[in-house]
């Protein structure tokens, strides 16, 4: 291989590397990264809700923008063309955890009202319910 060809090859490799880094940077925290990253905090739907109901500011400090894994009971599943929303709620509570999934990334089989699930997603805060986005369904332990 001539010297010139080696230079070109190295240049192309560097270019690909930069392109990949930019792509990674732009799309970081996307669904794929939630899939590959370990949850920073593990909790139950009831517990995170209780923390938000008691003290929203400190709960936000603990959970906001973090990948949180919750275990809970499915109350309802709502679908539209782009997304699926799974609502976790215990029967004795008025509020719960709303989990939003990308339409493409979710296998709906096994999701029915009353079933127990484990979900990880990025915590977006609290209105009446705790809100998790970019969710991923995990196998129940």
């Amino acid at each position, binding site marked *: 291989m001539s010297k010139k060809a080696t230079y070109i090859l190295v240049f192309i490799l560097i270019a690909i590397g930069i392109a990949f880094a930019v792509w990674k940077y*732009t*799309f970081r925290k996307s669904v794929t990264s939630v899939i590959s990253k370990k949850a920073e905090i593990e909790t139950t739907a009831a517990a995170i809700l209780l923390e938000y109901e008691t003290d929203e500011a400190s709960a936000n400090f603990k959970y906001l923008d973090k990948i949180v894994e919750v275990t809970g009971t499915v109350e309802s599943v709502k679908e539209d063309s782009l997304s699926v929303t799974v609502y976790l709620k215990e029967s004795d509570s*008025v509020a719960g955890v*709303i989990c*939003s999934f990308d339409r493409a990334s979710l296998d709906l089989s096994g999701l029915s009202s009353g079933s127990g699930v484990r979900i990880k997603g990025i915590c977006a*805060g609290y*209105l*009446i319910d705790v809100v998790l986005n970019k969710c991923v369904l995990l196998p129940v332990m």
Partner: protein
Amino acid sequence: MKIKILLFVLLAMFQFAQAQKYVSKNGHIKFFSHAPVEDIEAHNNQVVSILDPATGDLAFNLLIKAFEFKKALMQEHFNENYMESDKYPKSSFKGKITNLDKISFEQDGVYKAEVSGDLTIHNVTKPVTVKGTIEVKGGSVTASAKLIVSPKDYDIAIPSVVENNIAKEIEVSLDATYTVN
């Protein structure tokens, strides 16, 4: 403090909700910005809305951070540079249906609704009037509407570098399906 009050009001509304109010916990709001350089779209599927069919009172509440963009970087800029969602995490609308006499929640049909009230974005509150539709079908109620929001009206500063990336007028569409609480 304001948030506490808001929450209290919301909770109080929940108490009254026993007296036949419609509640939607996963309403959908989409906004669309069309600009020369790019089109930007974001969705929020966790909009809370309460509708009182007796008085026409209508309220919407949402978390700014619950808006999802295709690109994570856009979402980051939206939250950190434009909406300052750490400082102002919520956005709300509180208003009334002004032509309540033309809408029957008892009878199936599609009704045109006129709503006016106060819209709060980025801690700035402005009066707005919106035309939308309310569909009553077999006991379920769905509301939908479109409105135009200018970032400038809500003190959202857009640097001149990205002037051509973000529309001056942003189209916001919402739909919410209510269940009787």
